[in-house]
């Protein structure tokens, strides 16, 4: 089975889905930033009082806000988030993640259950990991630390 067929049949639950960063919609942007920094994740899923996902706040939104004014840090995160939350179910095929990223130019996709409870975060990083693990011979044999060009000449 090739990767195309695999991505159509394998489900999101088989990916290395990351634990979500969750912030209440009553949080400030400053509080969301602190939570995201602590978790080392570039997005937070915003939830209502019932802990249902209502939006997403990302570091890209933060950049836009800070470019306008530093006072954005004191805004409520619900006033800055994107309410159109990209999401998938754990039972959705992995291909949906790639399609959503390609069509909507987004980095993060929330993994929700049928009741909009947040289960995790997937997106670019987990997709790259998935493809790398699918083709270990082609990908994981390359040095992941990048290129270094020695300033010393080899000599004779």
């Amino acid at each position: 089975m090739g990767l195309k067929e695999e991505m159509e049949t394998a489900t999101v639950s088989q990916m290395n889905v990351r634990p979500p960063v969750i912030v209440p919609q009553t949080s400030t942007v400053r509080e969301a930033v602190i939570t995201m920094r602590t978790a080392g994740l570039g997005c937070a899923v915003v939830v209502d009082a019932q802990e249902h996902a209502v939006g997403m706040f990302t570091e890209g939104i933060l950049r836009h806000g800070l470019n306008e004014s530093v006072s954005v840090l004191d805004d409520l995160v619900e006033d800055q988030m994107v309410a159109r939350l990209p999401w998938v179910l754990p039972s959705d095929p992995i291909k949906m993640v790639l399609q959503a990223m390609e069509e909507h130019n987004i980095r993060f996709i929330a993994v929700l259950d049928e009741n909009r409870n947040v289960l995790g975060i997937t997106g670019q990083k987990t997709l790259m990991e998935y493809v790398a693990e699918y083709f270990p011979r082609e990908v994981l044999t390359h040095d992941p630390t990048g290129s270094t060009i020695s300033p010393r000449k080899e000599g004779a």
Partner: protein
Amino acid sequence: MTSANEPDNGNFQDPLEDYSTPAFDDPIEEALHEKLVASLQAQPHICVSADTSVRDTMKLMVGQQIACVLVEENDRLVGVFGDRDVLDKVALEYDAVIDGPVRNVMSTNPVSVREDESAAKVLSIMAVSGYRHIPVVRPDGKSVGIVSPQRMAHFLYGYLES
């Protein structure tokens, strides 16, 4: 057991004797095996001087709708500045850093690739090392592009749909 100097009675097999082109069942596998960084979209890319203020750099990123810029000094890549740096080093330190040079808050020693390296190497860096934006540099250290995760996903998607 035979030593290096003893005849092997014809049992020796040269591991490099099969020079035929490998066959691939999967177009993505073939692309990862065959394609070079040069075949990935690495343009446009934006470079700023290390002396550029953080404020101007962020304004440029917003205006150009990009999540990362390359930082150069004396025509050599010295760092990258992206959304994660804004989150980790600018947001809560805004007043102290916003009018300072971007060199103070950029990520130094960026992991980079050359155009003649395998596209699979970019994927390896993203998946294993966790870097998102991979600068493409010439051997003299001058940056010539940047591969973002969106561009890598676009590359994969193209072969997935072929």
